[in-house]
């Protein structure tokens, strides 16, 4: 068997694994969110299906699959069909560059624990996370519903606003790591994660990712009390499910990104690196859920105000300060 074939096989195996882990992860993240929110509100959350409600995601899937797939009369059908997939796929694709463990040696070969260690991983990630909004915008547009359209437009505006802050908050990370490769960034955080070295960038990134994934308090595109359900108002059944899955996969990806960029990736004592990686991702996911259970939704103008007039200036200043500091340290 040639190396190339083995490489392909390994990539396929990794892809399969990642798919499986991401999808089940997303499904259980839904359950985890409902349970945690329940506890925050002093309820139990879903606990009827299986022990501790562990089979709930399965039941949800069955329900979503068996529900009627409703298509509005005047909808732009092709786009309407594609949009939820787009939302899920772009989210999945971003995971290609995430290293979740140091390379391991398997059958005498060194196998990198990343699907594809691009040397411009950061740019790839930024690009894909921006693409994710296509699903929302197109879904909102294709539904031929004013709520959905408004939701899509808001999603676009919100993404543009926060993408900038997110990108700018990554500049110090790249500066500090001296590389665009995510593996290099992780390695650069041994022993001190960037979250401690540059907390401002960390916070800006954390907030921006929350806004990117349209999580509360930034869920303006689907604000229930104004827009019914925003961009997915007209979606039902598994198509709605895809949007949902996309959103939670996105949450996992962003969690991974935070882990990679700021929390030192797999690096940690005692436990195997992959466990550390997942623990950190889960911790970030928990923070997101916690945030949802705590904060109320921002108003649209507040959201824009906060993004443009606060986050971007702060991250710009942070770039300058970090750059200056690095120059001073090295110089």
């Amino acid at each position, binding site marked *: 068997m040639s190396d190339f074939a083995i490489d392909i096989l390994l990539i396929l195996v990794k892809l399969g694994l990642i798919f499986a882990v991401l999808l089940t992860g997303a499904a259980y993240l839904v359950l985890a969110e409902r349970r945690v929110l329940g506890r925050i509100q*002093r309820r139990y959350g879903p606990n009827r299906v299986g022990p501790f409600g562990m089979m709930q995601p399965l039941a949800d899937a069955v329900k979503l699959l068996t529900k009627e797939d409703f298509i509005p009369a005047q909808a732009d059908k092709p786009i309407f069909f594609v949009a939820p997939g787009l939302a899920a796929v772009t989210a999945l694709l971003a995971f290609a560059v995430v290293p979740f463990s140091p390379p391991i040696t398997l059958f005498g070969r060194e196998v990198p624990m990343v699907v594809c260690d691009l040397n411009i991983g950061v740019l790839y990630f930024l690009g894909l996370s921006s693409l994710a909004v296509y699903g929302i915008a197109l879904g909102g547009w294709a539904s031929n519903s004013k709520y959905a359209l408004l939701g899509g437009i808001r999603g676009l505006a919100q993404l543009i606003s926060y993408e900038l802050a997110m990108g700018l908050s990554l500049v110090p990370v790249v500066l500090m790591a001296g590389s665009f490769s995510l593996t290099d960034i992780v390695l650069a955080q041994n022993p001190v994660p960037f979250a401690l070295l540059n907390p401002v960038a960390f916070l800006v990134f954390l907030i921006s990712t929350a806004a990117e994934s349209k999580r509360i308090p930034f869920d303006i595109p689907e604000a229930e009390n104004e827009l019914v359900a925003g961009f997915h108002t007209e979606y039902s059944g598994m198509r709605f499910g895809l949007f949902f899955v996309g959103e939670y996969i996105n949450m996992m990806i962003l969690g991974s990104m935070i882990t990679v960029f700021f929390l030192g990736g797999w690096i940690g004592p005692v436990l195997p690196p992959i466990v550390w990686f997942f623990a950190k991702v889960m911790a970030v996911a928990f923070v997101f859920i916690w945030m949802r259970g705590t904060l109320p939704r921002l108003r649209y103008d507040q959201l824009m105000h906060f993004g443009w*007039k606060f986050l971007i200036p702060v991250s710009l200043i942070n770039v300058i300060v970090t750059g200056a500091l690095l120059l001073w340290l090295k110089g």
Partner: protein
Amino acid sequence: MAEGIDVYKRRYGQNPKSLWRDLKGTVEPFYVTLRNMFKKPVTYQYPEEKRTPYPRYRARIVLTRDPEGGERCVACYLCSAACPVDCISMQSSEDENGRRYAAWFRINFSRCIYCGLCAEACPTLAIQMTPFYEFSGRDPLKMVYEKEDLLIADGGKDNEYNFYKHAGIGVANPRGGNEDEYGPVDVRSNLP
């Protein structure tokens, strides 16, 4: 950016404490929610765990009887008039003693919203709400209760009350025989 700073100035310039308050207001809730996460949920796990409702809980409706065992309901239609979902219907009638009663009385429990307005409207304390809430069915027709299903052999919440002992029309007692009445007037009396 200068404008942005102006905004912060306008907002916090006068009172620097406001910034602190805002920050605290953003962070403190995280503590509150976290603390609640470790408290015992208030949920009752219904089919396994049952709660005892208070006596005045509003669930299944009954028709009660007066202390003498007679039907309290006089079929005055006030409950059906008060009912916001029109689930009560009846036909009043008169028995040989001149007592007004319901020839038939029907509550459609598949429509009832247990609001209690009927019990509130009832002038004779006949219609009362009970705390019996485990009450459902799959066949809507089986949820239509007739008078025979609704009548209980008890006075419910006020066992002593008998409307006809106060109504002054001579049903429970002879005319003028209630304790708050004079005997019937005699028009032909010689007394002025």
